[in-house]
């Protein structure tokens, strides 16, 4: 721990309470940061596809060690908090860097995490050999983005999507799709025996109209969005909504994990509050997550104002 003093803390209207930095950091880490999501650059140039695999693997090892230690201290080694933890690797560039993916997946496995690869169906179609290599090397779940298809997609495009997914399922892959139900239906795969015999999940990409948040009664709206989010530069953020927002940056994977302890201690109350009640935005009509996260970002000028 780099910060061990105690002080009175008051944040977001919480009652004044004793703050014990090491304890708060451990509690915050165990309760809220169970998973890691690594995002590729939205418009990747040749040098900025994603954080370097070796650096991320080292950071993951340090994170696991800290997590297990904190779980022992805070919860007596609760198995609940150790299972169902995931590393999500997102970005089509990953299919051009299979060795990096294998390095990161193995680091996740050392810590008992499963790995999900989030890629687009068009990237899968373009890299069949990469998929085969990954299948042979490491266990992976896939989240397949089909949002490039829409009502205007040609019959050929829909057929190509179905063919790619069929090859994936025949090779033993899971079927977790992101896309509009109507579009997925248009491919015809919901009538296909190959897909009906498997578990299939369709998650429409959230758009502003899909979640009109009932704010006064909101329970845990941000909970599923709080995790380590790492951008292409290796910068670490505490939730999906803050990814890339510099004032909310907790640290970097290029630094030792222990450097995050101060940020974890300092944000323990606010992250708990976010997890339970969401951001305190006055606009009751803000929709979640689209509007609410945007408004929240505007109000965050540093970790203290999360």
């Amino acid at each position, binding site marked *: 721990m780099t910060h061990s003093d105690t002080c009175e803390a008051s944040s977001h209207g919480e009652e004044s309470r004793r703050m014990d930095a090491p304890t708060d950091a451990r509690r915050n880490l165990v309760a809220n940061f169970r998973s890691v999501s690594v995002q590729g650059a939205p418009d990747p140039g040749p040098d900025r596809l994603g954080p370097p695999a070796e650096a991320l693997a080292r950071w993951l090892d340090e994170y696991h060690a800290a997590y297990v230690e904190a779980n022992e201290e805070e*919860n*007596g080694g*609760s*198995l*609940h908090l150790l*299972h*169902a933890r995931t590393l999500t690797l997102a970005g089509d560039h990953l299919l051009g860097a299979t060795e990096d993916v294998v390095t990161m997946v193995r680091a996740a496995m050392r810590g008992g995490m499963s790995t999900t690869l989030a890629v687009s169906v068009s990237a899968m179609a373009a890299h069949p050999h990469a998929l085969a290599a990954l299948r042979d090397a490491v266990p992976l779940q896939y989240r397949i983005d089909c949002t490039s298809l829409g009502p205007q997609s040609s019959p050929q495009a829909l057929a190509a999507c179905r063919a790619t997914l069929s090859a994936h399922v025949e090779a033993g892959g899971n079927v977790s799709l992101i896309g*509009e*139900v*109507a579009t997925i*239906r248009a491919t*015809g795969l*919901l*009538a*296909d*025996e190959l*897909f*009906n*015999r*498997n*578990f*299939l*999940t*369709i*998650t*429409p990409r959230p758009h502003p*109209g*899909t*979640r*009109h*948040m*009932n704010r006064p*009664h*909101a*329970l*845990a709206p941000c*909970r599923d969005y709080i995790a380590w989010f790492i951008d292409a530069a290796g910068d670490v953020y505490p939730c999906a909504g803050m990814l890339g927002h510099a004032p909310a940056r907790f640290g970097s994977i290029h630094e030792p994990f222990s450097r995050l302890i101060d940020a974890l201690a300092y944000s323990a109350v606010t992250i708990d509050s976010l997890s*339970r009640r969401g951001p305190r935005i006055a606009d009751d009509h803000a929709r*979640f997550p689209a509007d609410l996260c945007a408004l929240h970002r505007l109000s965050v000028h540093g970790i203290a104002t999360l």
Partner: protein
Amino acid sequence: MPSPDRFLLPLTYNTLVVESTTRCNAKCGMCYQGAGPKGSDYLGDAALTVDEIKRVLRSAATMPSVGRRFHMAGGESFIKMDESVEVFATAAHLGYTDISCTTNAYWAADVFKAHRVAQRLRDAGVLRMEISWDWWHGPHISPQAINNCLVACAANDISSNLRVLTTRSHSAEEALAMLSPAALAKVSFATSAPVYKVGRALEIPDEDIYSSSEEATCHTALNLTVNARGDVSPCCAGFDQTDHALFGNVREHELADIAEEINRSLLIRMVVFEGIASLRPILALLGEETKPRYTSICGMCFEIFSDKSKLARLTRFFEEMEAAALEEAFEQLQLAPVLEAAA
């Protein structure tokens, strides 16, 4: 190869599941609970009272082996809407962070009522609603009720999961084609899975069922389940519908004590960590026949634990194993002479 380390793990549960009633307004041909208007084909007509469910909620909230998730199912639990709302509000008050339910959405046939009910449920703390819909629900539930339910959930910030079951003759597409595209655009998740041969689905011919591997294990998919009779099971995928009463009833014992009983059961640990197929050679040894092929692990579990003769023999076998293991442990600790002297 069985892992001895894994076998020593305590059982942990993702969710507390309460099946509040065996009654359902529908009587679907694939229902794993065999539920209907007069109760269950397997468990009869049974229901838990609100006070009993509250006691279960309080008990589970203190158990380290159960996640802070609460899911209420039936039958169709919303045939008692006021009681269901009271239970959800209690769960929220007790600090359950993920509160969900399963419904067939019959209550949403009227669009205005659908919105009123969804708002009540959301105010009581329901975050997610699993809506069952497929070819078998068709004769009992109007597609319009499902449409209204999906729209009402979206309007009231309840995450909806449209759950569709399939067989070779009834696809996911067939089920979705009955619903309005505008309502389908409101779903938070749509999931499709094959029907397992559990409960009333036993009547569906084998050749119509998609089969899956017998070799899988289920230790990461456990839910501590209290069925409508108050009997407790480690899962809600068929074992909970068997007339076993193996571990205890919440009307007679504390849930935590029953969970500890399950945790100690060698029989359950074998099933959970090594897979239900690991009972095959034991049943053969005991002279009990098993089918050459089951269509899924849940179907196999349901059929074995529904068979009183197999269950009695298995229970006795594992009790004898436990006794022998204890005896061996005492011998290894060189306590046998002391015990003999004491006897």
